[in-house]
């Protein structure tokens, strides 16, 4: 059985490698069809973008996995339910506001959200927390202020839309609570670190379904459980992060932004184009404002705002990470809710902005 699983894994691995290689070559040929650009040069450029995304994201993913592991090991379900308000709407508001004092970006937030849901946090507030935090946290708002020094209102619009969007999407996600939203294999830690064969994992209290120790108190101390969990979370989320980063790097190499700018004519289509761009570029929410500010002359303020609120909520990189943690049907519905909400919020904000300078 295990041999079969191993063979399947290797086969999938080769298929993935082939897919990534093909993607890279397509991107290379399409994006740098310049005869002077050698394959080696393109490879270096691709490696630079890929590694810069990974080096930027990985520490925060690790931070998220550590926090998630600490929650798993040290925080009980009762504690979480005790500190939450009983009213569902108040829960959503509180979950969205936590982001104001929780300076983590979208890479770190997914493992933390997964950990909170596993500990019994309702799906609605968990999703609101996941959506709001990468936008309304103080570092992101400060970077937005610095990127738009002559228009501080952009900070207010970004924070306001992030907050409102998180509550709306949290409300929608709360309605999907009937079924389990986490992927079953997201819970599966295979080893507690003790190296003993034939473990019975149920009593390890670490939250995993499969791993066990003959004597959990001896074999799985709290610190060790945190390390084991962190490693397992990294193995799961990290793979999706890398996959997303590879696609994002391919897109950055291949898809010309000015071509998209040409498409983005019109009040509505410009919003859609900038949302697509935010999804494809997969920039960190702490850096995206600087890139967004360079689009101001070609795109309306509303569409730049759409870029600023869509990217932290959903992009290639965190879609892959969500796929690794949540069931596909849930991810697809949340994505749809995010895209729809961002579009409507940007449209509404566009009307408000228009009144500023009319």
């Amino acid at each position, binding site marked *: 059985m295990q041999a079969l699983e191993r063979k399947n894994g*290797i086969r999938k691995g080769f298929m993935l490698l082939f897919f990534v290689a093909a993607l890279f070559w397509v991107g290379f040929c399409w994006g740098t069809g310049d005869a002077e650009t050698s394959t080696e040069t393109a490879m270096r450029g691709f490696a630079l973008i890929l590694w810069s995304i990974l*080096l930027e994201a990985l520490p925060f993913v690790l931070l998220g996995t550590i926090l998630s592991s600490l929650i798993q090991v040290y925080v009980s379900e009762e504690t979480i339910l005790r500190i939450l308000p009983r009213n569902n709407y108040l829960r959503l508001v509180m979950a969205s506001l936590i982001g104001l004092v929780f300076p983590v970006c979208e890479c770190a937030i997914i493992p933390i959200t997964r950990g909170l849901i596993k500990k019994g946090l309702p799906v609605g507030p968990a999703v609101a927390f996941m959506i709001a935090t990468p936008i309304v946290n103080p570092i992101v708002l400060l970077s937005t202020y610095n990127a738009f020094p002559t228009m501080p209102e952009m900070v207010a619009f970004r924070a306001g839309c992030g907050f409102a969007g998180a509550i709306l999407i949290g409300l929608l996600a709360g309605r999907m609570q009937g079924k389990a939203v986490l992927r079953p294999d997201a819970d599966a830690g295979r080893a507690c670190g003790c*190296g003993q064969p034939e473990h019975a994992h149920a009593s390890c209290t670490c939250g995993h379904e499969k791993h066990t120790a003959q004597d959990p108190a001896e074999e799985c101390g709290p610190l060790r459980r945190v390390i084991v969990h962190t490693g397992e979370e990294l193995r799961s989320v990290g793979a999706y992060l890398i996959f997303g980063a590879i696609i994002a790097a391919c897109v950055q190499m291949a898809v010309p932004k000015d071509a998209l700018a040409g498409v983005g004519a019109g009040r509505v289509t410009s919003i859609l184009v900038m949302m697509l761009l935010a999804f494809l570029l997969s920039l960190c929410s702490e850096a995206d404002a600087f890139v967004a500010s360079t689009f101001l002359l070609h795109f309306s303020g*509303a569409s730049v705002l759409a870029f600023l609120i869509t990217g932290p909520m959903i992009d290639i990189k965190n879609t892959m990470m969500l796929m690794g943690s949540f069931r596909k049907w849930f991810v697809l519905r949340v994505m749809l809710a995010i895209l729809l909400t961002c579009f409507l919020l940007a449209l509404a904000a566009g009307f408000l902005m228009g009144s500023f*300078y009319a």
Partner: protein
Amino acid sequence: MRRPAGEALWLLALAAFAAIMGALLFGGDILLYLAPRMVPAVWFGLAVLVILTAHQAVHALRVWRNGGEDRPVRAGTLLFFIPVLLILTGTPNKDTYGTLPNQNVKMLGVASESTADTAQDSAFARPSPEPSEQPDDPRVTAQSVQPSAAASSQADVETEGKTQEETADSVEVIDAADALPCVLADGEAGFDVSADLFSDYLYEPLKEMEGQTITLYGFVYKDDSFPEDTILISRLYISCCAADASIVGFHVKVADASAFEEDEWIRVEGTVEAFSLEYCGSRYDFPILTGGTVIRCDEPDAQAVYIYP
């Protein structure tokens, strides 16, 4: 005794990532990828990876010795080796910046890439505080805020955005026998802004810069939307990582822009004036270097500048 392939593979992936992060941090090449402010986070990541690698090494050894359950070889684990192989086969260097496609351009507060109809509706496309009359042609016209310089500058430029008839305000190209270094010694040029201009001074109000003689270095960026007598002396600026790199530039008035190659490094000394850009129905003020000298120079080791060093 069966070899725990899955455990060993995961150990190898962790060790490879830790080794690469360590090599980049200790070798200083991390700044090719990230802005300095992000480096402490990478140190933290490295510390965590080292702990995870050590723990995994002990665990794999125990599984191997005790014949414990091996983890399956998953496609996800193999994915970790793609970036590792990439960086081993094609290590990026400072020249790689020149090959990055699709970079946006920022011209001290406003951007330019191409015109789009939507910008006319832009709520955030702010006009300059005192917009003057707008010419029919949406091309660049030179105009100084200071009356003395403005008169000659404005008169020299045709409204169609063609080449200036008179090039008194252009910087003079000095052809040196050997390429000179771009980076000046401290104090050599009076007010050597160099990289600082593109980071700390990025949002310096234009009024405070006018009339000052400054020296800059950077690479040449040209755009179809520029007049034929204008180039952009540019640097690559990074706010977080190379994936969000954009070009930031300062206009330079030259006699003939075609005399400059795209991406060649130059050092310019000139006086800051202001000129207005009519763009999609609104007017924007830009600083421009005029009336000085320009030399071609060797590209410096540190090519990127950072918003928050």
